[in-house]
């Protein structure tokens, strides 16, 4: 079969590389937009620092027991000998920082702050991750359905989102956290509290991402490739998941990274108001909430959890911002 072209074979001489100006043709061959975003991200040093910090944090959380066994003491172990019995403040400089106790100790109990911060990372990150996951899943599914089908489906889901947005979230979280009994849904203790927090945060936050996804879907729906797919006879779910969803991955990723920090802070706020995970399980928010009453007694007790939250939130924000720039062609 001969290609029915006026100048056979030559119409494609000028390579497609021309579109991506300046890039070496061999370098960009077969790169997806995701890969290009990754290339841009790699150049964004600030975002990369954020990313690296996050990876380190995750590793720290995962290997907390190991790290603690090397550099610290079990998180629940009391060290009264490190405490001035008169004022219950840690002995030694700045909360008793030493090579034995890298971040010093907690007032009163003398527990190793280093290991508590490390263990705290587990819960705080766990909650933030799963809550974000829940938000994203709910938000993406509902947002996509609302935006794609429109009509009454959209009306119902949009109103539902309005309702959730109209709930004073913190008030509700507090209320719900307060009335949940000790045992429920076949769970108890920390598992229940953590699941509950994940549920509260995720369940009440999804409309934010839902709205964004809905908006994006609305505009994606009008893109001609959707019509193209439909005119080929594709069914709705195929269009939704094969055509539209891949285009939503970028905003989902970006908003996830921006949601995680706000969820970390949310957990902290709930802990501060007393509906967080129950002691003695350490969480950053919980520690900070306690430390607020002890900032003079043990400044380290306030500083380190505060710093941990700050660094984590900052890292996620930086990465999120970087991702946004990387995915947004206009941001160049």
């Amino acid at each position, binding site marked *: 079969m001969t290609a029915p072209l006026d100048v056979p074979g030559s119409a494609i001489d000028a390579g497609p590389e021309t579109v991506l100006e300046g890039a070496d043709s061999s370098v960009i061959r077969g790169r997806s937009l995701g890969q290009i975003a990754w290339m841009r991200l790699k150049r964004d040093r600030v975002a990369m620092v954020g990313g690296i910090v996050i990876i380190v944090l995750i590793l720290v959380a995962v290997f907390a027991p190991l790290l603690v066994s090397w550099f610290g003491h079990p998180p*629940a*172990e*009391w060290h*009264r000998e490190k*405490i001035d*019995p*008169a*004022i*219950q*403040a840690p002995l030694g400089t700045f909360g008793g920082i030493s090579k034995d106790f890298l971040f010093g100790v907690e*007032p*009163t*109990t003398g527990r190793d702050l280093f290991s508590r911060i490390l263990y705290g990372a587990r819960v705080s990150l766990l909650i933030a991750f799963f809550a974000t996951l829940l938000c994203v899943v709910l938000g993406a599914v509902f947002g996509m359905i609302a935006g794609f089908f429109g009509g009454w489906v959209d009306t119902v889901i949009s109103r539902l989102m309005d309702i959730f947005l109209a709930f004073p979230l913190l008030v509700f979280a507090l209320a719900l956290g*307060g009335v949940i009994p*000790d045992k429920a849904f076949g769970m108890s*203790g920390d598992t229940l509290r953590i699941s509950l927090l994940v549920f509260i945060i995720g369940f009440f936050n999804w409309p934010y991402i839902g709205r964004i996804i809905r908006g994006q879907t609305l505009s994606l729906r009008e893109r001609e490739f959707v019509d193209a797919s439909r005119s080929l006879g594709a069914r709705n779910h195929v269009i939704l998941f094969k055509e539209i969803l891949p285009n939503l991955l970028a905003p989902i990723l970006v908003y996830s990274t921006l949601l995680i920090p706000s969820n970390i802070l949310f957990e902290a706020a709930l802990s501060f108001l*007393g509906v967080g995970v*129950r*002691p*003695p399980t350490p969480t950053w928010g919980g520690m900070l909430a*306690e430390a*607020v*009453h*002890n*900032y*003079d*007694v043990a400044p380290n007790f306030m500083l380190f959890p505060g710093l941990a939250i700050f660094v984590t939130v900052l890292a996620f924000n930086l990465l999120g911002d970087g991702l946004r720039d990387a995915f947004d062609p206009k941001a160049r």
Partner: protein
Amino acid sequence: GGGGGSTKKNGGDTAEAPASQYNAGVTQVVNPSTKTGGTLHMGMPGDFDSVDPGDQYYGYAWNFSRLYTRALTMFKPVPGEEGLQLVGDLAEDLGKPSDGGKTWTYKLRAGIKFEDGTPVTSKDVKYAVARSLDKEILPSGPTYFNDWLDNGDYTGPYKMKDKLDSWKGVETPDDQTVVFHLKKAYGGFDYFAMLPSTAPVPAAKDTGTKYKEHPVATGPYMFKAHELGKRIELVKNPNWDAATDPNRKQLNDSVEVLLGQNEDDLDQRLLSGKIDVKINSTGVGANARKTLLTDPKVKQYADSAPLDRTWFTNLNADVPPLDNIHCRKAVMYAADRSAIQGAYGGPDAGGEIALSLMPSKMTGYEKNDLYGVEANPGGDVNKAKEELKACNQPNGFSTTISFRVERAAEKQTAEALQQSLGRVGIKLEVKGYPQGDYFKLYAGKPDFAKKNGLGLMVYGWGADYPEGFGFFQQIVDSRVIRAAGNTNLGVKDPEIDKLIDQAAAEQDATKRNAIWASVDKKVSDDAFILPYVWAHGLFYRPPTLKNAFVSQNFGMYEFLTLSTQ
């Protein structure tokens, strides 16, 4: 009172604050002064349960309400032991018992008027007591009058509008005489007469639940403003007459209370002198504690005051193996009381290590150190192990410990017990419950405690008044145990109940006290309660605060005398 003039200028002459001494306020009046004028600034982390004298139960509320109301009797507003003495207030003198202690008669002082100038009569006292019976409208106050007065089926003037006269619990033979009729004899009735619910309330001005917006004053001050939950302002009561009131003065022009303050922030303002008194029962928080105890310049203005309060943990005999006394004793021996002392803030802010349940400062206290705590504040592991053997649990056992989740000290106590009992193999699972529901739904509900295996329940109790009955009855009398909302978390010993009855009826104070000491001992023997701290409060009195001392009774500064000039 006189005073007047420009009160704005603050002291002026002395740039340096007057020197003082740590704990001076515990035994003596600091900065005595009779100058008048100025505003006394008080600050409070939360709110009063109520400022309605018929509807309050907290020590600081009782302390505070005496600024504007007068009950039949009162504790003498002086420092030291003497402060535990009751004297007549509205009444000329203490009550006259008759009928073997079943009838108590009080004579009112002449010339006492309400803030609007109406004279106070015995009817107003009767009405006040009557309304306090209605726990639906006024739920917060103590139930002594409900429990002890010969009420028949009378439930108060709200539900039974016209039955007040036919109610025989309190009688008013004349305008100056109040007679109380009890169901059974009670020797310490003068303590009941001290309760703010005996402060007169004019029936015509009673607005039920809204009375707290403006309780009608008989004391030296009266309400000018009450922004619920936010602020209270008291001003001089023009119809208060010093001649009728030997115990009070009217030094301040006004008293202002800021409610709902952030505690740490309040401490800061107290230390900087912007606030004169902090209203709470345990004194300053951790941050201020450090400043107070480490900075000598500040420490001189601090008082570590002993309270009628013991911090303890109930050992629940409903939960095996704690039904076995040896297992309970193992816990008693193994507990590290000094760690717990730390949790409560150390010796000055938290309190002394308790040897037994009864606080040592209470009248009639007798030393009783059954478990050798004095020698081994960190616990006696060997003895504990022996007891475990005797209990057939040589390797220890597992149970649950509950605590009020909002209370950091109790949380740490639970953790400290988890640590120290762990030494002998007793494993504790730590569970926190919201303090609002702690007694109604969790630890104070025997069914729940049993079903959830709450073997240990962190707790603490302060006396309603510094007398054995006011301390013990609510926490060790098995007959007060109900389906829920208990204050006795499971001390069940018929012998103790018997001793309590004896003591209650006993008219002679010394004998009475001896019986209470034996109750204390019996409680130790039974090992139902693990006491660890006799509470102290660490209080701060700014150098500018005048006439400050710790009331032995309330375990905080006596509010009545405080002034700023």
